[in-house]
């Protein structure tokens, strides 16, 4: 590492190893006979051979294939219904709404899309909205938030982080919540109605809570000044984000779901990984075990169309899905497990064949000494 340096100490005939450990043993220079220093630590010396790997391949195959089948079946049993309500098509009921696009229009446009479910949805049904070609993972977007403000810090409320630019201050008032993410919060309102065979529209109750991570709702996001105080007063001196129709303290009437702890906001603030994503919107609770949550039949989706996506060629979807232990419907995992398991099993067979045919010959011929 370094050239032995000119060192007067060294000059007296005894060479005191400049980089060696000679320093600690002045007189008895014989190195210690420890297993570590002599590189003789007892060691386990595994060797990858056909003999050890073959069972591993078979075991992996035997474990993965059933898991894969289980996953695949589970995924297939999940019921999912998806509807695109962007209104690109002239025939679509939302075409008009999508044309009169602007994110700061005051008048809201409504449209309703009828659909029918072929199969009943059992147990809890989860309602998602999905956006496509929406780059929530764009760097400028991801960092445009102030977690300290959202955590209820009063200083940050009045003086948001610079990261929020250009959604930081409007008309000399700090924006709460600041930043591009909050500013572009999804604000379509989706309502679901069951059309009885006799034609009456029964609204389906949609639960607004339980859609965000518990820790987000209770720890990471907090209203300034504690939960008990008057939100309107707390947010005095701040202004609403530019594209919001209402200030943050009017997001909901329920005080537990208002302000920064509004779950729609929290869900939106968790930026999606990919430009095509879905976010949990509402939960349809199971009524009882006898009737399915969403029976077969006709439904309408009523949309208050606020959220413009056509400017960036985006799509909006509404998704209804049941959930299993593995989450939402995704056949990928099951297929992947089955394929990897099969590959392992197949390799095991091939290796067994090779090992059986060539392995013995190798062993007998190749021992020179």
């Amino acid at each position, binding site marked *: *590492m370094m*050239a032995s*340096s*000119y*060192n*007067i*100490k060294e000059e007296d005939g005894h*060479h005191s*190893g400049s*980089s*060696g450990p000679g320093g600690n043993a002045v007189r008895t*220079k*014989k190195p210690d006979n420890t297993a570590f*220093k002599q*590189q003789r*630590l*007892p*060691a386990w010396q595994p060797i*990858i051979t*056909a003999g050890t*790997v073959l069972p*591993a391949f078979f075991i992996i195959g035997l474990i*993965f294939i059933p898991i894969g089948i289980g996953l695949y079946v589970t995924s297939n049993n999940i019921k999912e219904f998806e509807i695109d309500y962007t209104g690109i098509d002239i025939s679509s009921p939302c075409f008009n709404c999508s044309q009169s696009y602007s*994110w700061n229009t005051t008048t809201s446009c409504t449209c309703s899309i009828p659909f029918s479910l072929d199969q009943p949805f059992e147990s*809890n049904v*989860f309602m998602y909205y999905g956006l496509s070609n*929406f*780059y929530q*993972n*764009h*760097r400028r977007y991801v960092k445009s938030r102030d*977690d300290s403000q959202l955590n209820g810090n009063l200083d940050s409320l009045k003086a948001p*982080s610079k990261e929020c630019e*250009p959604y930081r201050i409007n008309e000399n008032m700090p924006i709460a919540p600041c930043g*591009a993410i909050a500013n*572009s919060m999804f604000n379509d309102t989706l309502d679901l109605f069951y059309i009885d065979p006799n034609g009456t529209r029964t609204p389906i109750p949609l639960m607004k809570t339980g859609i965000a991570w518990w*820790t987000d709702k209770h*720890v*990471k996001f907090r209203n300034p000044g504690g939960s008990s105080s008057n939100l309107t007063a707390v947010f005095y001196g701040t202004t609403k984000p530019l594209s919001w129709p209402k200030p943050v303290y009017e997001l909901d009437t329920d005080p537990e779901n208002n302000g920064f702890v509004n779950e729609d906001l929290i869900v939106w603030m*968790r930026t*999606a*990984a*990919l*430009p095509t*994503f*879905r976010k949990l919107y509402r939960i349809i609770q199971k009524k009882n075990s006898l009737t399915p949550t969403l029976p077969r039949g006709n439904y309408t989706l009523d949309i208050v169309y606020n959220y413009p996506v056509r400017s*960036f060629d985006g799509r909006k979807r509404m998704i209804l*899905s049941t*959930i299993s232990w593995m*989450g*939402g419907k*995704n056949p*990928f995992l099951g297929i*992947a*497990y089955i394929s990897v398991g099969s590959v*392992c099993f197949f390799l095991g067979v091939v290796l067994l064949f090779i090992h059986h045919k060539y392995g013995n010959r190798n*062993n007998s011929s*190749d*021992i020179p*000494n």
Partner: protein
Amino acid sequence: MLRRRLNRLFGGDEKRVDSRTIYVGNRPCPATETFIPPKFCDNRIVSSKYTIWNFLPKNLFEQFRRIANFYFLIIFLVQVIVDTPTSPVTSGLPLFFVITVTAIKQGYEDWLRHKADSEVNKYPVRVLEDGQPARKDSEKIKVGDIVEVVEDETFPCDLILLQSSRDDDTCFVTTASLDGESNHKTHYTVPDMEKDLQSLSATIECEQPQPDLYKFVGRMHIYKPEHDPAVRSLGPENLLLKGATLKNTKKIYGVAVYTGMETKMALNYQGKSQKRSAVEKSINAFLLVYLCILISKAVVCTTLKYVWQSQDGQDEPWYNQKTEKEKGTILYVKMFTDFLSFMVLFNFIIPVSMYVTVEMQKFLGSFFITWDRDFFDPEIEEGALVNTSDLNEELGQVEYVFTDKTGTLTQNNMEFIECCIDGFQYTAFSSELDSFCVTDGPVSTFQEKAGREKEELFLRALCLCHTVQVKEAGPDELGGDQVDGPASEPLRPAEQRGFIASSPDEVALVKGAMRYGFTFLGLESKTMKIKNWQNDVEEYELLHVLNFDPVRRRMSVIVRSKSGDTLLFCKGADSSIFPRVRPEEVERIRMHVQRSATEGYRTLCVAYKRLSVDEYAAADAGLREARLALQDREEKLMAVYNQVETAMSLIGATAVEDRLQEEAAQTMEALQGAGMKVWVLTGDKMETAKSTCYACRLFRRSTELLELTVRTLESGGRRREEMLHDLLFDFHRKAVQDAPPARAGVNRSWSSANPEYGFIVDGAALALVMNPSPDTNCSRYRSLFLQICQNCTAVLCCRMAPLQKAQIVKMVKNSKGSPITLSIGDGANDVSMILEAHVGIGVKGKEGRQAVRNSDYAIPKLKHLRKLLLAHGHLYYIRIAHLVQYFFYKNLCFILPQFLYQFFCGCSQQPLYDAAYLTMYNICFTSMPILAYSLLEQQIAIEVLLDNATLYRDIAKNAMLRWGPFLYWTVLAVFQGLIFFFGVKYLFSNPALQDNGQVFGNWSYGTIVFTVLVFTVTLKLALDTRHWTWINHFVIWGSLAFYVVFSFFWGGIIWPFLKQQRLYFVFFNMLSSVSAWLVIILLIVLSLLPDILLGVLRKPRGPHTQQIAVVTPLSYKHLREHY
């Protein structure tokens, strides 16, 4: 440096002339009217590099000169200046860590140097002031001061010896610290110096400081009031060098001539040039590849970003508008900063930590060499020494071994074996060494005798012609008798006296003479006393010593006997003696000399000459004159020597045995078995060297010898050049063209039936090959010569001058394929080749410590080379090669998902992983297992490596770091990176992964990828580990556990200093999702699958692997039994 430059500025006049004038005692002299005290530098030694004030800037500057550090500094600065995706901390922290650690290390080393300096500079010395010794700090000595030094003190500067407390105007010094020779050397006072130094008025004229320790010319003018100025010549024998120690002498006075940084010791201290290992070169090549990958990635991303942005509504959608500043910047500036941002985002592909880890691995790894008990030699009570840890892995790559003969292959433990007087051979006491009788013993053993006078003359010659000193065993000697060589052998009752000499041959000869009954009693004030057969003491006045030097290869003394005869005795190599004696005497002796030489003995011929009064007067005058010369003294002396040493008559010859080192033959065999070519480079004569080669089994009976020596060149009776031409082509045809087409060398099985060739070349022939006369095509000869050498199993180069040794090494080093060379030697004459070769090994032999000082590694014995190369070298190479490949691999598959992510985030430089993960990945999560691996791995047990030298060939030619393996690792990394990214991407096609329907965001995505990454990369190393000690277990599983614990911790708290709580409970939520678990397991298994598969498929193919597989468990069992 600066000091020296300043000196040159101020002392400009003084520098230009090639001598300096010193006023002894700093007193003006009558001859010079105006006394201007000349300016010389003070006696301060400065070996430290820094002061407190310049440490920080200078050290930082030096550190950032390293290309890697500079690169990371640039990245850091870019992060600070430009708005980049990752915070400056991610690269600043590791960089800061590296710089700090290095700075602390260097600062500590410099502090040690400061301490050593001040110890020397503040050392109290006594300077004569007005006749009284006054105490002063050593640094205060000025040129011209008269300094008093007492016994066992080191000289504080270079002194001219003025006065000694010994009667014979001599003093003894050891120069162990300068050149490693621990024998006592005699130095002489300036002749005819008056006793009263106080009244001395003199000037010294001497040459400017120069580093050669053995050269000094000067002249002293002594002014006496009533006389003409007297002039005395000064030579190296008058000069006492700083650093040497006064021995055997009570007190001396000397005048300082060179001080401080101008002393010969300081001038000799030059940092060794840095050697770079082949692995480092590979690293640099790989770095270049990765730099290209990095740049192309950044270019691709930047291009794509602008392509993507040019689409409608993508550049600035309503939900994600730019700030005013961003809108304001010019497009090209923006593109450039984007490019820089991408560079920063992907910069982890070139890991700063690799340098730290490699340095640590090398530094810590080298301890295993010093710790190895097998390298411990009980005789000298020392183990191996590592001077540089940069070259550990180079030990596993050696292709050419250049070994010195004397002291390396042989023990340099001389024993007088036989002699030949006047053609009769005396080989009596080879077996009865200890039981001889002083008076009549030899007589009985002389069976076939020469004339008695001849015998006596011969033995007198042996007793007189040398520079041996008798060691005085006085009570004051207790502290100072750590002398080397035969002198320190246990004293036998019969020979109470020990001998001290610079060459062990001389001691052997004097002892040999003693056994024949002629005992050298010592040299006292120019009188040599010897005890003859009759127990009479004969006295001879020593008139001149014509010193030995390697060019003349002989030495002589001129003595005057009691009877008044003036005799010249000369001894030297046969080739230098034979031309100088009467030809008719030669033939009878030559036969004996050659026979002794073929038996592996070192032979010397002894001649004498009776000088007439006139002859002596002429010689005496010539010698005195030459010694006074200021310029070309060496040449003038040489001329006089040559003139005197003529027309001598040959008396006889001696043969001294130099025993082979322990296990020399086995070691050489093992090295050859390992595919290394062993070249013996020696200054010795051909016959002796050849016999040593046979003894070491470098040449076998079946080996066909190709000789290119002066003898073969002159045998044809033609011009040397023509003969050289013919021989070269002849040998070339034999050894190269007729050799089987399969490449000789590495691939050849070494028990093959091909004829083996041994090549012998001597210094003169080599000089012809290297520097032929201008009309011949010299480069052709060189390449022919090289090709012949490369196709021979062993090459012997004899009669080499030290520089020729280095020349040979250099030639091989620079030949095609630039093979790795190793030089091993023990003496000062091997230093040049040790410095020249890629790896220099010093043997802690008898010829002093100079080789050890200049070597990269020092071992006590030649036999240790085998373990050093076959075991340590092999393991270090495997370890470091794996380390390097693994580092590039793990960083490529670390960064590849991040790169792929850019395609899905609009090329916006959004990092996939959290900053903490980016920073910690190389520092904490994946660094310890590979460090432990690179210190402890033993893919093949050490015993197996030692027993199967052929295993060394598996890693020859940098096998694990060539483009093939590099490509394999890169492909593996790309494969795994793709799997990590797309596996998780397909999973995230539906981000609702929890059983409560909640969705995961981008940080969860990154965390899943990162978890798979950390586990895969660590488990991949676990798969490669063949030697699991508890440390490996601890570190591998510990790292994984640490990652999990850290993630919990990092995500479990709202960190007040973080602007964004990105990872808050992300890891926890990830673990609560079954799908995430399943995908992590799946991706890890899938990523490791190809490696496992290749591990299985690769095994049966290699020729040795089966053997290893068979042997390793056995050796493991053997290990078990050991405990």
